[in-house]
């Protein structure tokens, strides 16, 4: 087997060296009834690289790739062009096959990268500090709610109806078991957010208000008033960003005063990957740093006075604090954070602003074209690169009909909110720099045919 270097002679010599007559002697502590003598039956044996590649390629071909045709899906995962050097660099074995940097003297590559990542994320989100990443946006969102509970010692969280339904669903699952109280609901097909209503719903039990920006319908709004309302009642404002590219064009939540900003960093560097692995962003004001979950990298010096980096403030974490830790999280999303950071470094501020402007421009162009289709209108007043179309009929079957015509035309609100018939005619459409004018024309033409 190509991954196993021991030869039969090696095995024999090593068994002799440890005083075992056969390999079974080393499994002597396994009860006889649980010990398997041969390979597990009903499973195939080893296969060549060629055979395995052939099998996997056949499965891959059964999927329609986003690049196969006009593509307009978003709703928490966005298709952006990732420069070639990103994937090359993350495949350097020294990054790819390293472990968590527990021995900092020989992990400065990962640690410095994490320090740069934290710095980039904090600046992008407009906060003081960011951690070394979480699993993804949805789990980061729940961790933020838990953190707000720790900070405020209250347990009622108000979730905006513009929060991604999967994020809401994750919070609902967890709250069932932790005793946190969630106030939540589905969005309505309005151009404005529910943030003013949220502000008036804050009371003395409220630990936090969670808003998404841009939200699930693509709406953007100013959160300054909501920040003031939170501050007046001692609650924290948590902002969720699922499309970080937007922050190259619109104000960051931190700038507007959000206390904790979490997000999904997949847009930069990571790619779609059918939903994972992604990279959760987690950032907050400096005064809350000791309540943060997850790994943090910090600057220090070595015994010779040279600058270096280490994992720090680990007394928050499970391997030290066990049941008293701020979270049970034990990994970050290291390689995805690296991809994010490299992509961000390639862009720089100038590139990010240009990328964001192109996304917005392309989205405006698409919205204008699609709104010309009879019976179709755009819900949003304001948006970044994603908006909601109102169709004259339920959007979910339309998505399938569009797919038959080779157009992946967005995510229906019927898929996102299946139990809410009032949203059925909504279609969330994302338009990034990967979309061409031809793609937009093809989408509009196909939509027109399907609705005719």
């Amino acid at each position, binding site marked *: 087997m190509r991954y196993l270097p021991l030869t039969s002679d090696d095995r024999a010599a090593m068994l002799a060296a440890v005083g075992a007559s056969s390999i079974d002697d080393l499994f002597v502590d396994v009860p006889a009834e*649980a010990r398997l003598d041969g390979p597990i039956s009903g499973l195939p044996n*080893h296969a060549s690289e060629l055979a395995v590649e052939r099998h996997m390629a056949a499965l891959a071909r059964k999927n329609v790739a986003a690049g196969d045709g006009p593509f307009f899906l978003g709703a928490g995962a966005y298709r952006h062009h990732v420069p070639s*050097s990103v994937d090359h660099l993350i495949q350097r074995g*020294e990054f790819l096959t390293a*472990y968590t940097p527990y021995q900092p003297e020989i992990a*400065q590559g990962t640690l410095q990268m994490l320090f740069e990542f934290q710095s980039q994320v904090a600046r992008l989100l407009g906060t003081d*500090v960011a951690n070394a990443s979480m699993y993804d946006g949805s789990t980061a969102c729940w961790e933020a709610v838990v953190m707000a509970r720790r900070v405020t010692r209250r347990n009622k969280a108000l979730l905006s109806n513009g929060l991604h339904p999967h994020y809401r669903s994750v919070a609902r699952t967890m709250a069932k078991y932790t005793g946190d109280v969630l106030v939540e609901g589905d969005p309505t097909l309005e151009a404005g957010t529910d943030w003013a209503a949220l502000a008036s719903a804050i009371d003395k039990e409220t630990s936090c208000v969670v808003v998404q920006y841009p939200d699930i319908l693509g709406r953007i709004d100013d959160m300054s008033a909501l920040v003031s309302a939170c501050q007046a009642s001692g609650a924290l404002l948590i902002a969720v960003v699922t499309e970080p590219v937007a922050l190259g064009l619109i104000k960051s939540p931190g700038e507007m005063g959000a206390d904790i900003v979490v997000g999904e960093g997949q847009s930069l560097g990571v790619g779609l990957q059918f939903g994972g692995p992604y990279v959760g962003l987690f950032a907050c004001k400096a005064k809350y740093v000791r309540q943060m979950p997850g790994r943090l990298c910090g600057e*220090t010096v070595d015994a010779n006075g040279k600058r270096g980096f280490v994992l720090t403030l680990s007394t928050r974490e499970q391997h030290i604090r066990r049941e008293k830790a701020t979270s049970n999280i034990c990994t970050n999303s290291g390689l995805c954070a690296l991809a994010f950071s490299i992509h961000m470094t390639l862009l720089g501020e*100038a*590139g990010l602003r240009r990328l964001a402007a192109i996304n917005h421009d392309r989205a405006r162009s698409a919205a204008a074209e699609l709104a010309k289709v009879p019976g179709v209108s755009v819900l949003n007043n304001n948006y970044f690169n994603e908006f909601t179309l109102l169709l004259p009929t339920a959007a979910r079957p339309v998505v399938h009909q569009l797919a038959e015509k080779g157009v992946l035309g967005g995510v229906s609100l019927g898929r996102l909110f299946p139990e809410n018939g009032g949203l059925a005619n909504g279609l969330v459409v994302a338009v990034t720099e990967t979309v061409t004018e031809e793609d937009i024309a093809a989408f509009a033409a196909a939509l027109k045919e399907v609705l005719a």
Partner: protein
Amino acid sequence: MTALNRAGWRPEMNAGGADDNVTYTGNRALMLEEPLIFEIGSTETTGVDFDEVAPAVDLGGLARSAPIGLPGLSESETVRHYTRLSRQNYAIDLGLFPLGSCTMKHNPRLNEKVARMPGFADVHPLQPQETVQGAYAVIHELAEWLIKLTGMYGVAMSPKAGAHGELCGILCIKAALEARGEDRRVLLVPESAHGTNPATAAFAGFTVEDIPATAEGRVDLAALKARLGPDVAGVMITNPNTCGLFERDMKAISDAVHAAGGYVYCDGANFNAIVGRVRPGDLGVDAMHINLHKTFSTPHGGGGPGSGPVVLSEALAPYGPLPFVARYADGSFKLIEEESAGDEHPETFGRMTAFHGQMGMFTRALTYILSHGADGLKQVAEDAVLNANYILRNLDDVLDAPFGASGPCMHEALFSDKGLAEGFSTLDVAKGLIDEGYHPMTVYFPLVVHGAMLVEPTETESKAVLDQFIGALRSIALRAKNGDPALKTAPHFAPRARLDETLAARKPVLAWSEPEVAPGAPSLSEIGGS
């Protein structure tokens, strides 16, 4: 923001060092110092070319006007920056990485190639189901393998990492208890468990109590039985355990816990020792997470991403999370989400993550599993265990092996600091190994052993590599026993000497800021900005 110093070089880069041979740059031939992107980039530089676009409008007054402060580099500078950084890392690709309980095995590159096929890498999680049947097929095929390899009833694929998998299993237990109308609050966890176990139990609202261990390093069955009762929800047991031993009484433990109305969670971090050779389902386990990034070789990536599917017994499977992939008689696949749960999976505890889990890890793990097959995986476990025993028996004369008399170890060998000279510790041994060109073993874990050193070589190391490692560790152990002062200041040949972790925690610098206010980098301000 413009860069402080686009040359990136700072005078203190050549500070210190083991000898007087300082260089102007601070570099030492192939060992290259590398500044931060904030010190070499500028906000005007970009490594990505775009078409010009019209300025944005229609943003409802939300246009971002203030500077963000994100440095950019050209593509050539970017490639060099990250390549230089990468060379300051140790990695499996460079050599033995014997971190106990972490299973740092070779990461096959076929896995990387497959994961990057456009049909897997460039697919959106919310595409219409008829356009992603191949992706569902991968999830389903991997799920079938995991079920068969563990002898369990079902598997939850969506957990994002090991600790997330633990949470999944514990929530299944919670949901099952609720369905029975029982309010059991206590989870029993051995002291030798990974920190994630008690943290997970607490995160899910359980109270944690210790299970005592026997002198030979295993769960004390009699003490466990005595503690079981109507308030105990279950146990969380790592098997093989973190002392490197198989829990001989696992079946008896499971039977006792079940008889008392509880459930058995098994931490599967050490599954590599038994994959293809022992099925946890045969030992009465109700839930066990599998770290795809350990046993099934998906790369650790410097700390993630992980992936932690959880295999479940028939008793717990009905409560598993959404979404999951179901296969129909006609060979088609369907994703069971919230909307269909009422008909297909009514007792689910709910969703744990957006979308469907770590697809990029599924493609890699399945590729690895198909490469090995049932026969190869069995050989994996056997070679991993043989390699660990070879290390244990070749070093137990110079290093204390606290459970060396408890029988063969499984895939990791545990030593303590007993017998090292006064003032010498496990840390010194670890740092000495760095100079010898190895990543150290896991240190100070498990907590039940003083100055623990947990060595897990994995099956992908040759006998020659092990022999050299044994020689190196033997030499360091003797130096530590003889009180060699040079060991106290090791490593001497790494990119950095020992780092001041106390300073890092006392005055946390967690993000780069302008040098005037950057503690820990005072000399930067002497250079001045450009």
